[in-house]
C-alpha cells in the first residue's frame, strides 16, 4: 500500500538500485510489498504545507516527539481508521533514528556545559522510548518497544528487527518509525505498519 501524497524522494525509502528492473520482472514485488507493509505515512506530506507538527503534552523544545507522533498516528489511521487496533493484537514499535532527539540533546549539553540546571521534562524525553510509550498508551500498542540506531540502510534495519519480533512471536504486527532530525533542516519521518495480515 502506498500512501497518497508521498514525497517524490524519500530519505528512508529502501534502496532499489540493486533490484531488477520492472521491465524484466513484471511480477516482482516491491521492497515495501516484500516487507509486508499494510500502511505507510510520511512527515511531511503535501497537505502539511510546511507547518509544524502539533505539540505533544509533556514534550518540549524539540520537534522530535511531535513528528514521531504525527507520522505514526497518520500511519495507524490509514491502517485502522477510527476503529483503532483490535483488542488482542500485539503491536510492537520499532523506532529507528541515527540522530535521536538532536535538539534536546544539544540543549542539555549546552546547559550542563554552562553549569546550569535542566528542566525536569528533558529527563522524561531523554530517550526515544518515551515518545514510543506515548504512542503505545494512546493506541494500546502492547508489543515490544525497540529503538535502534541504524548501522546500514535504516529501512532495512528496521524491517529486519520487525520481522524478528513477529517471527519470534512477541509481536503480531509492528509499527516501524524512521526519523532523522537534521541540525539545520526540517525533520523528516516515515512510518509503516508491517504484518498483521497474511505474511507475504
Amino acid at each position, binding site marked *: 500500500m502506498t500512501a497518497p501524497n508521498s514525497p517524490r524522494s524519500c530519505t528512508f525509502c529502501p534502496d532499489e538500485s540493486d533490484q531488477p528492473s520492472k521491465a524484466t520482472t513484471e511480477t516482482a514485488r516491491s521492497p515495501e510489498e516484500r516487507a509486508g507493509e499494510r500502511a505507510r505515512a510520511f512527515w511531511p506530506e503535501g497537505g502539511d504545507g510546511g507547518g509544524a507538527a502539533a505539540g505533544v503534552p509533556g514534550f518540549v523544545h524539540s520537534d522530535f516527539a511531535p513528528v514521531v507522533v504525527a507520522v505514526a498516528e497518520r500511519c495507524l489511521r490509514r491502517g485502522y481508521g477510527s476503529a483503532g487496533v483490535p483488542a488482542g493484537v500485539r503491536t510492537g514499535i520499532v523506532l529507528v533514528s541515527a540522530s535521536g532527539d538532536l535538539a534536546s540533546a544539544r540543549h542539555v549539553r549546552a546547559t550542563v556545559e554552562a553549569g546550569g540546571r535542566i528542566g525536569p521534562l528533558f529527563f522524561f524525553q531523554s530517550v526515544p522510548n518515551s515518545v514510543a510509550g506515548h504512542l503505545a498508551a494512546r493506541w494500546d500498542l502492547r508489543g515490544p518497544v525497540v529503538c535502534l540506531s541504524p548501522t546500514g540502510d535504516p529501512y532495512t534495519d528496521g524491517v529486519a528487527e520487525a520481522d*524478528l519480533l513477529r517471527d519470534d512471536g512477541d509481536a503480531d504486527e509492528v509499527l516501524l518509525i524512521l526519523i532523522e532530525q537534521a541540525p539545520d533542516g526540517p525533520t523528516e519521518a516515515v512510518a509503516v505498519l508491517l504484518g498483521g495480515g497474511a505474511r507475504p
Partner: protein
Amino acid sequence: MVEARVAQLTGVHAVSALGRGADAQLAGVLAGVPAFGPVGRFDTAARRVTVAATLSEVATLTDELAVAIDAACRAAGLDRAQRTGCALLLAVHGGPAPGPAPAVLAGQLAARCGLSGHTRVYTSACVSASTAVADAAARISRGDVERVVVAAGYLVEPDQFALFDAGRALAVDGAVRPFSAGRRGLLLGDGVAAVVLESSTVRRRGVEPVATVVGWGRAGDAFHPCQPEPGGNGLARAVGGALRRAGLPPESVGYVNANATGTAQSDAAEAAALRRALGAHATRVPVSSTKSVHGHALEASGLLELVVTALALRHGELPVNAGWLGPDDACPLNVVTNGPQKTEATHALTLNAAFGGANTALLVGVG
C-alpha cells in the same frame, strides 16, 4: 532425533564499580557492599545528588567495550578465525554523545575485535542490552546464526547524570534500596559487559558454557511515556514469554534478579508483575536487585545483570539486596536481605524495564 538449538553463554566479561572482570562482579554482588561514592569524574556541584558507582580509572567507552568484547571472546575460546562472520549486537545510548556515533562505534568495535558479521545498535534505554540478548537468542535458536557477540556500555557522564538529577530520579540518601520501605530512588553506575552466545549444536573445543539462555520475552505496557503500569501487566507478559519459550512452569524459577531500581512506583509495579506471572511462587522465590550494589548502568544494565545472574546461579549463591531498611507492603516478595543465600536452583530470571513501558525477561539455566 534432532537436538533443539539453544543459545549458550560461552564467554562473559564485565566491568563495573565492583571491579574488572567476571570474577570481580560475582565477588562484589555476593559481598553486597554498595559501590557508591562521590563522583570525581565531573563537577556535580549544581546537582541535588552527587554520588554514583564509578570506577576510579576508566578508559574511553570505545576502548572499554573493545577490551570487554575481546575478553569475552577469549573466555569463549574464540580465536580470530572463529570470530569471522560473527555478528555484533551493541547496546549504547543513542543520539549525540562524546566519541563516535553509535553506528561508527559498532563498526570500529567489530573491526578491532575481528567480528565480521552484521552489526545492530540498540538504543532502547534500559532494555537495550536485554533486548539485544533476546534477539540474539532468538536468531540462534531458529538457526539463523551460530554465534553472536552482545556488548553494552554506559560510563557515568555529566549529561545523563544531570537529566536524572533534574527528574528527581536519584536517591537523595545516597543508597539504592530495592523493594525496601523508605526507598528514595536510583543511583547511576558504570557498566561495560560483553557476552558470546553460541548455538548448543556447535560442539567445539570442549568449552563449558557459563549458562544457557533458555527463555526470553519482550512486551510493552501501553500505559505511559515514562511510568510503569502499576499492575505489572507488560512485565508479567514478558516473564510469561520467557517461561513459555523455555517450556518451564513458574516453580522452576529459583531466583529473580529484579529490575528494581529503588524507585517507589517501579518496584511496586515489578512486585505486582511477579505475582501476576509467578502466582503464589512469587512470595517464595528469592529476589534481589544487584543495582543496589553496582548501580543503574542504563543501556548496559541488562547485560551486566545477566552476567552476574548467570555467574551467581552457576556458583550456587544468590546476591544480596543491599540497602534494606524493612519490608514494604506494596512489595510482598522474598527479598534476599541477610547476606548471600546458598542455592541449588537451576534457573533464574533477570528482568529489565525502561521508559516507554518496555519490558524484557531473560531466563537462564545451568546444569
